[in-house]
């Protein structure tokens, strides 16, 4: 009896699996955007606003403009739980969907990005890892298919040092200063270390690297070390639960919050809310504005949520990571518009999207048309430079909302770019890639 049930279950399972092979066909002529999301698992608090941001912007383009120059957007979510192995499955599942295959991938996970970088060139699907992933991909000669504009971890670290110098009154003041980098002990967390080390040599500040192991629920030891060290500034590259605990611990050792700056993955709404009033004064880097007062948000509320503000708020509209996803989705859509300018108003293939990304030129005037004036900065990508080294801005939490507290802070390109080129050259040598020439 039992056996019979099991056999039946097995047969049902097998039918299910064979049906998997036939993926649902999508409407003809659509521009397909694959979405690797994580709405569950350890990083869901960050994944949910990101996924909603993408979804809402794509819907906005469809509802308000009737698509990109008349080409409707279709999209499909695939849950990765921020897990690299599930990411592979999702990538395989989505890459050939839609009339022209996937336009571009936004993995939103360091691990998955690393995974997809070598595959992208073979499958001819571009990757836009906006402000994460492999920093060396900024060298477009080696990484033809990977883009990480508007700026990268290394640029961000240099801008942070620049910000400290501004606050302290000049680069010469950095000499002898103590700066600590509290980082997630992973590929992502360690990204900023080489830059901070190189800059320490240049400007003479004393750098202390403090690693926090995944998941980072218990950081007493780290913050005791900070208490003893008494650094002038603390920079943090955290992710997930590590951020919330770090902010709480910083508050409990009475560290001066004004001098505690997170990177752009350590400054979302989910990061500061659990710490309560302890988080007041905490700063983080970003490259777009906070809040929902921008024109594009008004459009989203009107065209996506039918004017229902409370529903929009429940879907994270205006949160930091939501806004980041909106910027990211806008870059993708504009890249397709750029490509359509050359190849005609139809659905673009991965190859054409790549061209669009590489020739992307979003001016301030264009941002104004998009309802994003002042929300983010103009970007001009080129063949050799997939990063553009754009400036960052510092935002601060006041207990209820994030607000911008600095001007746009330029990155130190003279330091970062040579490091990028060396790293890219190493990668090329190791993987037998011949860099293309850019003219």
């Amino acid at each position, binding site marked *: 009896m039992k056996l019979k049930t099991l056999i039946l279950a097995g047969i049902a399972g097998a039918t299910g699996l064979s049906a998997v092979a036939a993926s649902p066909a999508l409407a003809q002529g659509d521009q397909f955007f694959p979405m690797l999301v994580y*709405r*569950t*698992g*350890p990083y*869901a*608090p960050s994944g*949910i606003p990101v996924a909603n941001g993408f979804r809402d912007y794509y819907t906005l383009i469809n509802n308000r403009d009737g698509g990109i120059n008349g080409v409707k957007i279709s999209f499909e979510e695939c849950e990765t739980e921020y897990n690299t192995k599930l990411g592979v499955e999702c990538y395989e599942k989505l890459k050939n969907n839609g009339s022209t295959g996937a336009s571009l991938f936004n993995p939103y996970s360091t691990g998955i990005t690393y995974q997809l970088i070598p595959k992208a060139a073979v499958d001819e699907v571009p990757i836009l890892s906006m402000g994460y992933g492999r920093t060396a991909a900024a060298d477009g000669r080696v990484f033809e298919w990977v883009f990480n504009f508007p700026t990268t971890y290394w640029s961000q670290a240099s801008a942070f040092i620049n910000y400290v110098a501004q606050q302290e009154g000049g680069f010469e003041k950095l000499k002898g200063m103590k700066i600590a980098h509290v980082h997630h*002990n992973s590929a992502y967390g360690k990204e900023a270390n080489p830059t901070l080390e190189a800059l320490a040599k240049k400007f003479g500040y004393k750098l202390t*690297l*403090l*690693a*926090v*192991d995944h*998941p980072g*629920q*218990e950081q*007493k*030891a*780290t913050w*005791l*070390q900070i*208490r*003893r060290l008494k650094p002038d500034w603390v920079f943090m590259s955290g992710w*997930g*639960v590590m951020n*919330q*605990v770090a902010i*709480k611990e910083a508050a*409990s*050792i*009475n560290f001066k919050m004004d001098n505690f700056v997170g990177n752009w993955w350590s400054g979302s709404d*989910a990061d500061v*809310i*659990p710490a*309560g009033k*302890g988080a007041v004064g905490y700063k983080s880097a970003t490259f777009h504005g906070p809040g929902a007062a921008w024109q594009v948000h008004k459009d989203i509320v009107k065209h996506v949520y039918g004017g229902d503000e409370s529903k929009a708020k429940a879907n994270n509209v205006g949160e930091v990571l939501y806004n980041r996803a909106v910027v990211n989705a806008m870059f993708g859509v504009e890249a397709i518009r750029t490509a359509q300018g050359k190849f005609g108003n139809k659905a673009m293939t991965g190859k054409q999207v790549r061209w669009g990304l590489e020739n992307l030129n979003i001016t301030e005037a264009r941002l104004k048309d998009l309802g994003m004036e002042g929300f983010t900065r103009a970007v001009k990508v080129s063949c050799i430079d997939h990063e553009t080294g754009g400036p960052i801005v510092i935002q601060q939490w006041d207990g209820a909302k994030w607000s911008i507290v600095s001007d746009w802070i330029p990155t130190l390109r003279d330091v970062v770019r040579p490091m990028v080129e060396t790293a890219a050259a190493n990668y090329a040598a190791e993987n037998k890639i011949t860099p293309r020439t850019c003219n």
Partner: protein
Amino acid sequence: MLYDVLIAPFLDMADSPVFFAEVVIVGLLTGVMYSLVALGFVLIFKASGVFNFAQGVMVLFAALTLVGLMEHGVPTWLALILTVVIMVVLAYGIEWFMLRRLVNQEGIILFMATIGLSFVLQGLGETMWGSNVKALDIGIPDASFEVSGILLNEFDLFAAASGAVLVAVLAVFFHYTRIGRALRAVADDHQAALSVGIPLKTIWVIVWAVAGMVGLVAGIMWGAKSGVQFSLSLIALKALPVLILGGFTSVPGAIVGGLIIGVGEKVAEIYWGPLFGGAIENWFAYVLALVFLLFRPQGLFGERIIERV
């Protein structure tokens, strides 16, 4: 190199005794927090011989339920009561759907079953209350103050105190109540307990319910630090070295083990960590426990393992 490992850290400790004292105190307080999680494991292992891997998720589930109820406008005290009720219902469910069907199976099979259970609970909790991080604030003060150069946090002290109270209550419960004695009888020998008329199934429900409540306390303490979210279930991994060090079957062992691990890993991280590039505390806790185990394979307070052919 040898000097750096063997001598410099001790000089460092002697150099600033106040800071060393602070490290030790923080280690002790953290240790109590680990014990809180380890206690849940011990209770269940003691009474049913199940290494309950789902304890971490039970912590998450309890905390999620509490916060979820509070977010829906339920007052804190009522939410606490309701959560306890839900944990009891859950214990019933686990007994009915799982335990009674797996009686007499090998330990590893039961262990696997609890991993299956942890998936179910995780899915259930997140379906009911969402995956987003939730702030948990039930009004425990968390200001910091300094006593002769040592920085203490009210919240940590409160957590340690509630841990101590919990252990005391459990000890009394185990030793002086009728149910407690029955529990100990079951732990000693299932069949003998059954034959003198102790209702095994009821006992299991009670133990799982108590473990659920201990999980709730742990969830409140840890959840207040990090917000209630999925990662809360991962603290189980920090409780495991405590568990083997103290012994799977000993409530005091969980406490002492927690204190040893807490102090050991903090001291190691702060004085030896920088030599190796930091973040050594996670594996150091396991290695420390391992060293203890080499001398006492059943943990510090575990029951002596007697083997016969």
